[in-house]
């Protein structure tokens, strides 16, 4: 079975709003997690990562939160822009498997 999964298949937000994308994982031995963004016709692109010894990591407009107790990751995108429209995947380093992804649509 899949080791990672997404709670919501689609998410629609208004431009300028904040977006939150969730992901659950099952392998408690995973120690490194990655969020990818995939635009239409392109391969997945690295956004941000986090190691299991951290609870939170911030990048430019993106923040990843890790809750090891419930094996849950979230990706927060601040001030969402039309260019953020894509499918977002989380992956963990034990077996590099992906879930189905969440499609984010940003309405102008």
């Amino acid at each position, binding site marked *: 079975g899949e080791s990672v999964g997404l709670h919501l298949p689609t998410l629609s937000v208004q431009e300028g709003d904040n977006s939150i994308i969730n992901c659950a994982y099952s392998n408690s031995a995973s120690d*490194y997690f990655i969020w990818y963004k995939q635009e239409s*016709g392109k391969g997945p*692109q690295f956004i941000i*990562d986090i190691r299991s010894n951290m609870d939170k990591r911030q990048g430019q407009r993106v923040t990843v939160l890790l809750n090891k107790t419930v094996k849950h990751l979230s990706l927060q995108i601040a001030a969402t822009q039309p260019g953020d429209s894509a499918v977002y995947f989380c992956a963990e*380093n034990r077996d*590099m498997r992906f*879930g*189905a*992804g969440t499609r984010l649509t940003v309405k102008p």
Partner: protein
Amino acid sequence: EAGVAQSPRYKIIEKRQSVAFWCNPISGHATLYWYQQILGQGPKLLIQFQNNGVVDDSQLPKDRFSAERLKGVDSTLKIQPAKLEDSAVYLCASSTGLPRNTEAFFGQGTRLTVV
């Protein structure tokens, strides 16, 4: 630095034909992955190489799919014979792989259509 290169970009074949995809990873990356992405789904890992050795091929349909990375650099993925359900984008990715799996860099993929 140059990214992961894949070719061809598109391929259309008839069922029961054979097809091969090529991937050249980022220079120095020891780990190479092949993924199959069916429309509307997440990438499915087919095979993972560490240098020229196979780390994980548990999801590779070995009756028709094969992959090699003979010199530990570029890699080919072959399907023989193809089925309609093999229509998908085949993604190659590479990473340093040290000390454990780290972020993978993806190519643009090869879109295969089997008719």
